[in-house]
């Protein structure tokens, strides 16, 4: 018996061509990647890896409690750096947010300039910023705080401007119709609408900044990262284990705490 088969699927030629192009581009990308990258496999799979592995891993999982106090002191500094940087950014990002919001700032040039500045900041990892600040003012927590603050302005400014652009403009219109001036509109029409979201984003950014601050010390910008460099240079992997443990606990605790506060705000 002849089977009744469904007709073949017809794809329009442009889509077919597009799909083939995408596939070819992807294949080319992977060929380029794997043919030129220099992974020294003979080192990766060497005796040294095995000896390192058996030395490093067990030590990581048996944290050195003698280092506890030292680690905690620098963890506290890390938290202070994150707090200072985030708070600075939370305030400094406000004007950026307003300038970038097209419903409040009517000047196109100002919109584009501030949006561009925020985008530009976000292109750089904090660690690159920190490296430059260390070069400028020498190794210090201040360099780290600046890196955190500037990096956070990039994200907070953008989020703020999105919040401002989504406010209910009817309220603003109503106040203007009542004869309120610009400052009055700002305080009675706009600020009440945006404060909870601004706070919530700033606290969220604090979570991110805590993570970011833990590593700044690797290049001399203060905090617990300073110890990481010393401990690895001396191959004190049990101390690295202690640092790791404390980072995991503190970051988790702050995440929960921050999520709790943010839930109450919004």
């Amino acid at each position: 018996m002849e089977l009744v088969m469904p007709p073949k699927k017809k794809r329009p030629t442009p889509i077919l061509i597009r799909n083939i192009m995408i596939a070819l581009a992807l294949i080319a990308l992977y060929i380029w990647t794997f043919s030129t990258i220099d992974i020294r496999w003979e080192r990766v799979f060497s005796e040294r890896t095995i000896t390192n592995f058996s030395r490093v891993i067990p030590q990581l999982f048996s944290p050195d409690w003698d280092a506890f106090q030292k680690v905690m002191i620098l963890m506290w500094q890390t938290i202070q750096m994150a707090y200072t940087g985030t708070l600075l950014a939370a305030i400094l990002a406000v004007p950026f947010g307003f300038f970038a919001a097209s419903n409040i700032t009517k000047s196109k040039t100002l919109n584009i300039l501030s949006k561009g500045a925020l985008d530009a900041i976000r292109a750089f990892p904090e660690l690159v910023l920190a490296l430059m600040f260390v070069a400028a003012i020498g190794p210090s927590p201040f360099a780290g705080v600046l890196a955190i603050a500037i990096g956070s302005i990039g994200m907070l400014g953008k989020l703020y401007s999105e919040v401002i652009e989504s406010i209910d403009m009817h309220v603003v219109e109503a106040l203007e119709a009542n004869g309120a001036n610009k400052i009055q509109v700002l305080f009675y029409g706009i600020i009440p609408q945006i404060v909870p979201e601004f706070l919530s984003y700033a606290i969220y950014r604090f979570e991110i900044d805590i993570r970011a601050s833990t590593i700044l010390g690797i290049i001399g910008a203060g905090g617990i990262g300073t110890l990481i460099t010393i401990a690895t240079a001396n191959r004190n992997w049990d101390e690295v284990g202690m640092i790791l443990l404390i980072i995991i606990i503190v970051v988790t605790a702050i995440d929960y705490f921050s999520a709790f506060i943010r839930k109450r705000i919004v």
Partner: protein
Amino acid sequence: MNSETVVQGLTSTKEKLRITIILIAVIGMYIYTSRATESSILDFIDGWSGFQRIAVDLFPPNWSYAPLVGEKLAETIQMAIIATTVAALVSIPIFLLSAANLFPNAWIHMPVRLLMNILRTIPDILLAVIFVGIFGVGVFPGIMALFIFSLGILAKLMYETIEAIDMNPIDAIRAAGGNTMQVIWFAVLPQVLPQFVSFTLYVFEVNVRASVVLGFVGAGGIGLLLQQQVSFFNYPRVMTIIIIIFVAVVIIDYISNKIRERLV
């Protein structure tokens, strides 16, 4: 009404007091931390000459250095590509097992989630330090660090997506006699595929930024050059590197965003 209502301001006294206390605490804490981290306004004024010096020294960038930077930039991007690809593939079983609507048994999804939560708290560069300690200096430890870090992010984003899918088709496939694998393949994955691709691209963006700095700890990529040139005080070269990183990150973000917009 027998008594006149006394209105005291627009907000209640209790609320005002609460806000004032919080504000004082936040500002007080700031004053303390900014002194402890030597980051007050005074420190800023002290450091001003340093910023000025650097800002002047950075210009003009040294473009003859660009080809070498280009090579290392390629390596940076390649590390991100490999790490993202492997993480995307490995994350599939992990996020499926973490989804409570597919595996309601808490003994399955809770341990997997816990492990992923812990992984996400470890900064990628710290992972890189550890992997450099094991595998030696090179791109491999960098790729491993990015891979582990991406795994945590992808797994979380995806299991949350799966927990929000339409469960009706899953009932239908079960009712037609499909087993768990078939339910996943025919009813779950088609629903989450666009998000999966979108999140993978997002993780790629994150990984490009992260791999820029991995070189600081010897884990490959452009960061090595940046740190070298900074320590040699060769600022025109530093500027070249910074500009190239900037352009590359902006272009990659732009392309990735365009694709993601079309997906969802």
